[in-house]
């Protein structure tokens, strides 16, 4: 990061690391980073994205590689230093707790001696003083001092991790780099370890770089974070902001795959594999990105400010907005009264996310959906799709536009049409390509939702299909147009649980591989919790709460959301209790 912070202690400028393997692997590419005293920085990214290389290059421990760029620590340029000078800083000023494994520690040397090693080098202590200090350090990290007489293999994974931390802290460093400290720990030890770091950092005042896959730990321990992908920093910002509102599709993918945040959601990783570092000229995320475009393939985006303390490397300035609705009001006039179905609704859907719109029956969910696709006109308010105001059916009447799947499967497709005709209908109306291409596209769409594409099935009348099949057909029909946004209005409300599960999994799978956005409308909180990345809660025509799904479901702020959640989940608990009682009563008898 280029911030001109006068308190900057550790600074990386334009750091490039290329390993001299065959072929050469460009592990880090133009990394800029700044760390102030007592600062805490989290680094996230998939395995192999360059996190550990970054840590090792700060420590000056990279071998067999070309390093360019500058690493400065308190005005001393580490990258220009000779190994002997560097040793005075390594461990003394900048220390690192390595990723835990048996390899890191020498199996034939007692723990105490290994921990004392850096101290001998830097402080010239006597054996007695060193032993004393080791005992203190072990107790500081929550290990009993007597463990120092043991060999590494005699300790459990968690204990070894603590020993590694003790080792890193032995010379009271100013910067502590911690690489994956939690990966081998169970939940309880992990919790204890997080607390330990919090406490140590408070007491000893070191700056910390935390490399971890555990997002909750990053959340608790760091104030800023960066996302590393294929050797580049692609997003940087305040931890709280980034976790709540990631701006790069990759960061969002990482966060959405975190089971700690989405406790009930189905787990879906980011589709595709990361490229071999440096093998792609354009944006390294291009092959996996949901909003890729021409320029993304041509050039690598630079990290740019998009807000205060917020930077993102994306040609599109971060995740694009697909749909916005502002101030939507809709009233229905009945004989002698006016019913306000929607009372100033604002909604925003971005590329590639699943947004759930939840609310009790009659809260205005379907009305909103119909207004979004302009089946119904709003009284006031504006809907924008892909940056353009929605008028007429322009946004839905094209390939790559938005599509809606309606609630009732029996009405979703004309019972009179043949399966193939029904799926091809949107393409026919839009006049896309020619007949054989349309047929092919329709058949592909049918296979995507796992409907058979046999001639017999293709020429069956739609009324001869079951509810589940028809609803899948409706989904296939929307899919045939490669939509950028799919609005699914209670599509499983009339299906049995098994069909519902199958359809939802298929839909989510499609969403995951094709990367379209989805507005999933439901009154079923269980379903919403299963699929949603973000949630809007609608009550009597007004959005009473919205945010990241884990925030809304775990810490609802609005009274109405509380009520909805209570009704959905307490009801289940009471059923469970009743079942328990029945079972225990039955056992007694």
């Amino acid at each position: 990061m280029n911030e001109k912070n006068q308190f900057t202690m550790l600074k990386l400028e334009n750091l490039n690391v290329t390993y001299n393997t065959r072929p050469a692997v460009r592990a880090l590419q133009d990394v800029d980073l700044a760390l102030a005293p007592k600062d805490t920085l989290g680094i996230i990214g998939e395995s192999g994205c360059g996190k550990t290389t970054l840590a090792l290059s700060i420590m000056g421990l990279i071998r067999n590689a070309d390093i360019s760029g500058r690493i400065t620590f308190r005005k001393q340029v580490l990258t220009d230093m000779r190994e002997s000078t560097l040793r005075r800083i390594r461990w003394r000023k900048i220390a690192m707790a390595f990723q835990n494994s048996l390899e890191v520690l020498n199996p034939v040397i007692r723990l105490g001696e290994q921990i004392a090693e850096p101290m001998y080098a830097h402080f010239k202590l006597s054996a007695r003083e060193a032993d004393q200090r080791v005992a203190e350090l072990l107790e500081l990290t929550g290990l009993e001092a007597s463990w120092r007489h043991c060999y590494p293999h005699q300790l459990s994974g968690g204990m070894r991790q603590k020993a590694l931390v003790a080792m890193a802290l032995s010379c009271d460093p100013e910067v502590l780099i911690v690489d994956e400290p939690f990966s081998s720990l169970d939940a309880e030890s992990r919790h204890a370890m997080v607390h330990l770091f919090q406490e140590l950092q408070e007491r000893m005042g070191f700056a910390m770089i935390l490399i971890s896959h555990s997002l909750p730990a990053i959340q608790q321990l760091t104030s800023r974070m960066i996302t590393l992908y294929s050797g580049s920093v692609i997003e940087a910002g305040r931890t709280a902001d980034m976790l709540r509102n990631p701006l790069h599709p990759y960061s969002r993918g990482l966060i959405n795959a975190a089971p700690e945040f989405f406790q009930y959601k189905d787990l879906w990783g980011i589709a595709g594999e990361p490229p071999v570092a440096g093998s792609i000229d354009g944006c390294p995320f291009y092959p996996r990105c949901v909003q890729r475009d021409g320029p993304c393939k041509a050039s690598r985006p630079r990290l740019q400010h998009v807000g205060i303390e917020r930077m993102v490397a994306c040609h599109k300035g971060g995740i694009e907005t697909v749909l916005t609705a502002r101030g939507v009001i809709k009233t229905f006039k009945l004989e002698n009264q006016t019913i306000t179905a929607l009372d100033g609704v604002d909604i925003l859907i971005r590329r590639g996310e699943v947004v759930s719109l939840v609310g009790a029956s009659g809260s205005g969910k379907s009305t909103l959906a119909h207004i979004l696709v302009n089946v119904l006109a709003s009284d006031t308010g504006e809907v924008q799709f892909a940056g353009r105001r929605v008028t007429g059916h322009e946004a839905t009447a094209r390939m790559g536009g938005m599509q809606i799947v309606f609630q009732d499967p029996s009405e979703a497709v004309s019972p009179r049409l043949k399966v193939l005709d029904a799926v091809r209908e949107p393409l026919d109306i839009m006049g896309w390509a020619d007949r054989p291409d349309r047929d092919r596209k329709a058949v592909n769409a049918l296979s995507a939702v796992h409907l058979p594409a046999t001639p017999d099935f293709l020429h069956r009348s739609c009324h001869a299909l079951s509810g589940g099949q028809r609803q899948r057909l409706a989904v296939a029909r929307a899919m045939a147009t490669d939509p950028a946004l799919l609005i699914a209005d209670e599509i499983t409300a009339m299906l049995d649980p098994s069909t519902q599960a199958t359809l939802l999994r298929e839909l989510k799978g499609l969403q995951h591989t094709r990367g379209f956005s989805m507005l999933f409308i439901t009154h079923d909180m269980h379903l919403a919790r299963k699929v949603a990345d973000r949630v809007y809660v609608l009550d009597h025509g007004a959005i009473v709460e919205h945010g990241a799904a884990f925030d809304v479901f775990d810490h609802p702020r609005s009274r109405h959301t509380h009520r909805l959640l209570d009704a959905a989940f307490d009801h289940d608990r009471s059923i469970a209790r009743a079942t328990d009682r029945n079972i225990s009563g039955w056992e007694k008898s």
Partner: protein
Amino acid sequence: MKARVTTGIQFLRRMSAGGKTGAFILLAFVFVAAAASIISLHPHRQISGPPLSPPGPSHWLGTDDLGVDLWAQICHGARVSLIIGLGTALLAGLGGALAGILAGYAGGLTDAVLMRLIDIMIVLPDLPVMIVLAAFFGPSLMTIVIVLSLFSWVHTARIVRSRVLSLKQRRYIHAAETFGAGMVYLMHRHFLPEIFPLAAVSMIRLTGRAIVAEAGLSFLGLGDPTSRSWGLIIHHATNFQGIYYTDFWTWWLLYPWLALTLIVTALALVGRDLEKMADPRMMRGHGKPI
């Protein structure tokens, strides 16, 4: 083609006994009308025997007061009846269906204007107005078809409109609209095929009504005097003084009446069966729409 034939056979199989009888009678009339000049031994406009001769081997149904063969007149009369019936049904059925779709789909002012017009047409007593119109335009087959159509389209229009109103709210119509479908696409792809069974039933009924109405007008002397329709035969018969004091009526009046009754009954029977089949609920129940 083969598929069409099989659908036709399926269609016949699903008809009731009454319906089948009706269909048979109708087919017979169509045959008679088509082959009128072949199957009648005598010309239908020229004297071919002694006047008022009773049915016999040379004149199967006897002759009228001028000595014109009655069988030949009835055969040719069937043409007139069928042309009038089908013509009116087609004209009124199509017009009514279009008006119904337009009113139902467009809604608003168009709907209001059309519906008020239909209300007026229903309230107007049709026979007197028909008499006036027929008298005004002068008697010809074409005029009669048009006049009858003017009064018959309203029922079809009302039925079709109500169906379109309910269809319009169907999600798949909304879906087609979101894909960008226009009125023309919806009309030929969704509305017309959905409405066709209903319109067909309505048209069969219209046929019956039109045939009777034409007979009525002709009976009153307002039909096409050159047409030799069944109504005209009855008109001439009843105008013959002393028809009720002789037994001439047993052929001169009876046979045209019988033809008229048969065709109307047959139409009613077929119409009833079609109505059952066109009912969407029954259609679903069978699981095999036509």
